[in-house]
Every structure is written in C-alpha cells, then in structure tokens.
C-alpha cells in the first residue's frame, strides 16, 4: 500500500489515463443522463412557458405555481421525494425497464425525470426572457400577414428567441453535467458515486476526486466548444457573419452583429 499523506502521482495518472471499466460506465451515465435530462427539460420548459402565456388565467396560474415550486425547493429534496418518497408512500416505484435491448434502471429513470422537471422551471424562465427580447414589431408583422399568434410564435418569434437562448442554455447544460453528481444520493452509478466507491476501498481521496474533477472539466470544456460552434452556425444562418475566416473567429468575434443592424435606420 502506498504511503498515505503524500500525493500519489501514479494513482492519479492511472485514474485519468487508464480509467477502469466501472469508471467509464459512470462517465457514460453522467453524459447520457445530462443530455436526456436537458433535452426533456428544454421541451418541458417550452411547454410551461407557452402555458404561462395562455389566454386562460387558470392555466397561467398553474404554470406559474409549477415554476415557483420547482425553483423554490432544493433539487436534492426533489430527488429524494420522487425516488424514495413516492416509493415509501407506496404511490409509485420506479422499475427497471428495457427498450431495444438497452436496460434503464429505475433509479436512472427517476434521476432523469426529476432533473428534467427541475430544469424545465429554469428553462421556462430563460425561454420567457428570450421571447420577450424579440422585438414586439416581429409579432405585429407576422400578425399583419394573417398569422395567428401561435403561428407567429412558431415561425417568427421562437426561431429568433432560440438564438438569444443559446448562451444561457449552454450555461444550464454545463451546470447539468455537474449537477448529475447529486444523483449519487439516490444511488445512480454515475461518475461521482464511482469515485466515492473507489475512495471507500482505497482512501486515495485527493487523487480520486481530483481525477473526477478532471473528467467533469473535460466534459464541460468539450461542451464549450460545441456551444460556440452552434452559436456560430446560428449567426451564419441569419446572415450576420458573412465570411467565416478563422482569424476573424479567433480575434474578432461578434463584429458582424452590429454592422447590419443599424444600417439604413436612422
């Protein structure tokens, strides 16, 4: 057994560069749980926000209540309530289920669903702010060519809101990948729980959690690149960046935005 108390470089290096099979499974769990939770969270958040804009007051109130409850209580509490609480009451127990040969343990289903619901409340806020920041004249112009509000939202306002949404959405997903570590509390075998289990047998606490930190950092960094690629693509699609020269990307980002916007208008 290596000497305790000094940083063991070899252990750390092996953890980072020669991860064990369970470690990689944990990593994969972290990735797919965050992707699914975020995707469902965005979809649900959009629905919640559209309901909050409904013409019917009771619907608006219900959606408002939903957001208030979810943003006002800790995710950890929600997780335990959904997975352990519902089962303890005998109301609902998550069961393992398999789809096309892939088995999804009940606890992971509970994790994804709770994360998605919690995320939807925050996404509803982000979507609201993005919709509100689209010029009101856009809705009027769409209505003036005979569009109903729903159509105008779908074809005119939302496509513009999406662009505004991407930076805060990127933030949310960055956070989501790290927040999945909370699922360890209900027993999801993701990256953090793996580190904990390894720690309980080897006591190489610093090396193990530093290696875990390196993995989270790698995930969020890769996402950072993907996000900036998405932002560039959306900008190019609305004609704001005319030439995608690499030099400009590195040193002069965002200049295309101001050029056209004010031209011609006094």
């Amino acid at each position, binding site marked *: 057994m290596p000497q305790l108390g000094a940083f063991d470089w070899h252990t750390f290096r092996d953890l980072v560069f020669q991860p064990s099979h369970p470690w990689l499974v944990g990593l994969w769990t972290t990735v797919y749980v965050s992707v699914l939770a975020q995707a469902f969270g965005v979809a649900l958040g959009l629905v919640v926000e559209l309901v909050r804009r409904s013409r019917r007051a009771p619907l608006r109130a219900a959606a408002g209540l939903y957001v208030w409850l979810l943003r006002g209580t800790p995710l950890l509490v929600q997780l335990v309530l959904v997975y352990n609480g519902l089962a303890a009451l005998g109301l609902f127990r998550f069961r393992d289920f398999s789809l096309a040969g892939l088995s999804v343990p009940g606890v992971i289903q509970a994790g994804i669903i709770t994360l998605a619901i919690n995320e939807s409340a925050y996404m509803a806020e982000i979507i609201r702010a993005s919709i509100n920041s689209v*010029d009101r*004249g*856009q809705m*009027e*112009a*769409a*209505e*003036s*060519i*005979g*569009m*109903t*509000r729903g*159509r105008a939202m779908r*074809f*005119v306002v939302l*496509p*513009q809101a999406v*662009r505004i949404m991407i930076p805060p959405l990127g933030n949310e997903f960055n956070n989501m990948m790290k927040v999945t570590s909370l699922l360890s509390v209900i027993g999801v075998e993701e990256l953090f729980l793996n580190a904990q289990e390894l720690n309980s047998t080897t006591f190489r606490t610093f090396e193990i959690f530093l290696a875990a930190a390196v993995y989270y950092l790698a995930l969020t960094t890769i996402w950072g690149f993907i996000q900036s690629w998405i932002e560039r693509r959306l900008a190019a*699609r*609305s*004609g*704001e960046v*005319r030439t995608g020269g690499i030099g400009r990307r590195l040193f002069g980002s965002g200049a295309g935005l101001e*050029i*056209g*916007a004010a*031209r*011609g*208008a*006094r």
Partner: protein
Amino acid sequence: MSGAPILRVDRVHKAFGALAVLHDVSLEVRRGETVVIIGPSGSGKTTLLRCINHLERIDGGRIEVNGHPVGYRPGRGGSLREETPRNIARQREDIGFVFQRFNLFPHMTAVENVCLGPVRVRGVDRAEARRRAEELLERVGLADKRDAHPSQLSGGQQQRVAIARALAMRPALMLFDEPTSALDPEMVGEVIEVMRELADEGMTMVVVSHEMAFAKTAADRIVVMDDGAIVDEGPPERIFSDAAGARTREFLARIV
C-alpha cells in the same frame, strides 16, 4: 374614382386609459383610391391605421373592410364582441400593413420573408410562392437581393422588401404607417417610387406620411387629422391651397 367603399371607418372612438386618442373618426375609402393622412404627431394618424387591421382595439364605432366588420362581430343586444383570434387573423390576410421600422424577419432571406405568408397562411405551394415572391421582388427593384438577409440590406431596400411581403398576400387594401420616416433622406425616393407605382396600378392605399411631395402628386384625397379627429379632407389641389381649412393651413405652415 368610383366603386363601393373597401374601407369604412364609422364614428370610431379609441382611448388609452383616460386619454382619448381618436374621437368620432369616420372615413370611407373606395376601391383604387389612394388616401394620404397627414397631421401633427400625436394626432392619432398611426393609431387609426393600426385600428384598421386590429393591431389596436377600438372602444366605440365600427370599422369595415369589404363590407365585413374588422375585429368584432355582433353580439347579443346589438353590442359588438371581439372576434376569435382565428377570424381576426383571416381578416388581416386581406389588409397589407407596412411598418415605419420595416419589421422584416431577420432570420429569413428577402425571398423567404415574402414567401412566409403565402406558404404558411394561404397554403400556397412552396415553389409557386417562391416564383411569385421573386416576381414581387423584381417589381420593387430587388431581384438581385432575393437571397440577402435584412441585415445586409439598406433601410430603403428593407422597406421595399416589406412592401413586397405585404403584397404577396394579394391584399385588397394596403396600409402604410410612415413608411419613409425611419429612412435616411437619400433612401426616401426609392420607397416613394414603389408606392407611386402601386397607386398608379390601382391599389387601394391608406398612407400616413409626412412626405408632402408624395401627398401632392399621388393622393386622390388627403385627410388632415389633429387631436384625434379628422379636421379637413379633400383633393390635394384644395388641401394645398388657400381654400383649405384654418387648421390645415396652420399645420402646413409649420412643416414647410
């Protein structure tokens, strides 16, 4: 100019809170007519125009386009109830609106801007809509800009695309809300030119504008508004002469 009125505004009343912005405004526009509304800012010109396609609600009176009330339907006991959103949208299909600040859809190219209404509202076949959109862009002199995004166009070009977008719905009536007020002076001419051609081709138009040259030469009739009411009305020869009413002469003296 003859024919049935396409637009009938009948004793319309409108207030923002306690502030009455339109009182007792009545106006008829016949098919093919070009009516230019002038008057000091805050006189209710833009509000009147926005009421005509129900971008603003009215608090009294009645607005009809092609004989059908806009935005309202008869309710119990002769009162008027607001139409369903779907019906309001349907009524707007026949009323083109050109905004002061263009309001082009920035995420679409010029031709996509023009196609959107025909494809998504009228259900026109995509290829057919595109062909017609290209024709319209050619008509406003922008055939070469069809794949440009609004951010790549000058103000005058954007406004001409906006006119093409409104025309694509084949409206019975076109409303222009100060279409040249947000433009640099050198771009006013190109937009005015397109509007003049439209008027000559027999489009029914109601134009709120400060362009007196356009009013003098293209209008069949000029309506003068002040303090939320129509204070004078007549052919340009009379409005721009000493025979005009006192408030008209006062307003014109101020702006020239």
